[in-house]
C-alpha cells in the first residue's frame, strides 16, 4: 500500500468557473520525499489542503496511510503534520509558548518527541523567548516545522515551506527534511523553486491543475525528445535575439550564464553558421544534460 495515493482528484472554485485541480493522480511511497513542483496558481495548495482534510474534492479520492481524508478526517489529522504556505503560528507568543501550545493541541508530550525535533530545537533555542512574529523568514519556517512535528506524524504535508526564504536558509531547511526522511517520515512538499527538485526522491511537475510529469528528478529530464544546447557569447542579450530569429529554433530561454536552446531540426553547426554573421566574437554551443526547468518549460509550451 502506498502511503499517499490520490485518484483523479478534481476541485473547482467559484461554482465551477475556476478549476484548481483536474483529475490529479499520483502515489507516494513510505519514507519518500515527494516534491510538487509548480508555479503559483498551479494547484499545489489546493492539493495539499485536500490531503490535509481541510477542503473537500469535487470528485476523485485520496488516501493517507489507508485513511480517506473525506470520511476518516479525524484519523488523518492524527497522523499528519501540516505546514500551510502562510506563516501560521501565533506571532504574539514566544517560540517556546508556540511549541508548548501545539504540543497540547496534539496531545503530545514535548519531552517524548524531543529526539525528533532536537536538531531544529537546538537551532531555535537561542531565540526561545522571542516572539514568533519577530523571527526571520528562515527561522519562522523552522519553528513551524517544529510545531508540525511535535506529535510525531507519519506524514508531513508542507506547502511551500521555502518560498521567500533566502538560499542559505532554504538549504538548511532541506537538510532538515532529509534527516526527517531518514527517520521514516513520508514527506510531501511543494515548491515553486525548480532547483529544489533535485533534493526530492521523486517529483511531480504541476501546472494549471494538472500533473505534467512524475518521476525521479534524474529520469524526468531524460524524457525530453530534443537535445538541449547551452549557448553563450560575449553579448548574451544579442545572442538570445539572434537564436530566436533562427527559423529552426524550437525554443531558446535564458538560463543563468547561458541560454538553453532546442532545435526543431538540423544540426547545432547549422545554428552556429547562422549566428556567425550576426554575433561578434566567438559563440559556444554545447549539448548539455537538461534539467527539471527545461522539462517544465517544454511541457508548458507544448500544452499551450
Amino acid at each position, binding site marked *: 500500500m502506498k502511503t499517499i495515493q490520490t485518484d483523479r482528484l478534481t476541485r473547482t472554485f467559484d461554482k465551477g468557473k475556476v478549476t484548481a485541480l483536474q483529475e490529479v493522480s499520483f502515489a507516494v511511497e513510505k519514507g519518500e520525499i515527494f516534491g510538487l513542483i509548480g508555479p503559483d496558481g498551479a494547484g499545489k495548495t489546493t492539493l495539499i489542503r485536500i490531503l490535509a482534510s481541510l477542503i473537500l474534492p469535487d470528485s476523485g479520492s485520496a488516501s493517507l496511510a489507508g485513511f480517506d481524508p473525506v470520511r476518516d478526517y479525524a484519523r488523518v489529522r492524527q497522523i499528519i503534520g501540516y505546514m500551510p504556505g502562510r506563516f501560521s503560528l501565533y506571532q504574539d507568543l514566544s517560540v517556546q509558548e508556540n511549541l508548548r501550545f501545539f504540543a497540547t493541541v496534539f496531545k503530545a508530550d514535548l519531552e517524548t518527541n524531543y529526539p525528533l525535533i532536537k536538531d531544529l530545537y537546538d537551532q531555535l533555542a537561542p531565540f526561545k523567548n522571542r516572539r514568533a512574529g519577530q523571527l526571520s523568514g528562515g527561522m519562522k519556517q523552522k519553528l513551524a516545522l517544529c510545531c508540525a512535528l511535535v506529535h510525531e506524524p507519519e506524514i508531513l504535508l508542507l506547502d511551500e515551506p521555502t*518560498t521567500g526564504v533566502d538560499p542559505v536558509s532554504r538549504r538548511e531547511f532541506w537538510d532538515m527534511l532529509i534527516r526527517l526522511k531518514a527517520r521514516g517520515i513520508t514527506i510531501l512538499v511543494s515548491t515553486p523553486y525548480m532547483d529544489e527538485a533535485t533534493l526530492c526522491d521523486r517529483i511531480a511537475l504541476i501546472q494549471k491543475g494538472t500533473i505534467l510529469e512524475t518521476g525521479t528528478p534524474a529520469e524526468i529530464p531524460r524524457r525530453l525528445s530534443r537535445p538541449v544546447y547551452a549557448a553563450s557569447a560575449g553579448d548574451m542579450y544579442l545572442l*538570445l535575439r539572434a537564436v530566436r530569429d533562427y527559423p529552426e529554433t524550437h525554443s531558446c530561454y535564458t538560463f543563468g550564464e547561458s541560454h538553453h536552446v532546442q532545435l526543431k531540426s538540423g544540426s547545432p553547426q547549422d545554428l552556429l553558421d547562422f549566428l556567425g554573421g550576426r554575433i561578434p566574437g566567438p559563440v559556444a554551443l554545447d549539448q548539455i544534460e537538461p534539467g527539471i526547468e527545461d522539462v517544465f518549460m517544454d511541457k508548458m509550451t507544448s500544452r499551450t
Partner: protein
Amino acid sequence: MKAIEVKDLTRKFGDFTAVDHISFDVSKGEIFGFLGANGAGKTTAMRMLCGLLKPSSGEGRVAGFDINLQSEEIKKNIGYMSQKFSLYNDLTARENILFYGGLYDIPYKELKIKSERLLDRLGLGPYANKLLRDYPLGWKQKLAFSVAIQHQPMIVFLDEPTGGVDPITRRQFWDMIYESAEGGLTVFVTTHYMDEAEYCHRVCIMVDGRIAAMDTPQSLKKKYESQNMDEVFRKLARGAVRSPDVPGRGKR
C-alpha cells in the same frame, strides 16, 4: 553622472546596525543585482535608496539627487515594484495604468495615449477592462513592471519581482528587463533565484549589513572558485556571524 552613488551609507535601529557603511555606484543602463540572506540589510538599504528611510549617516545620490535632502525628488525619478505590493486587484488593467500615471503628474491626454500603447505592447488590449484579480500572476507582474516604468524614471527598483512566477513568465519578465536596460534604464533588482543573478551586469552580495562582494557574475565565480552564483552566495553567506534574526525583519 552615475545613476546611483552612495558612500558609507549606514542605518541604525537602536543599537543595531542594519546597514553598515556601504559604498557602491551603479552606472546608467546597468542591471545591478542586490543579493543577501534574510536580514542581511537588503530591504533597509533599498528603502534608503528609494527615499523612504533616512540614513543614520553617510551620503549618496540617486538619479542625481541627494538622499539626505531630496527624497521627494528621488521618488519622482525612480520606479518601484515589489512582489508584495504592486497593483490594485479590484481595478482593471487600464485603470491601474491610468492611476499610477496620474501619481507622477503625466498629463491626462498623454497618459491616455501612452496607456493604450502600453496595453497593446503587452498584448493586453482585449483584456484591458477586466479586473486585475482575474489575471494570471505572470501577466500581473509584467503589467506591474510596465506601470513602474511608464513615467520614464531613470532607475527602477525591483524587490523580488519574480517570486513564485512560472519559469517561462519569469524569463519573459527578464526579457523585459533586458529590453528596458538596453534603452538606458537602470535596474536595481533583488532576487532569491540565483540563476537570475547571472543575468545581472554586476552583483552585490550583502552579509551582516556590509557588502561582502561586488563584481560581475563571471569574476565572482572565478574568485570564489564556484560553478554558479548559488555556490558563490552560499560560500559568502555561510560566513555570516550576525544571526539572521533581526526584529521586524521576517518576510513570512
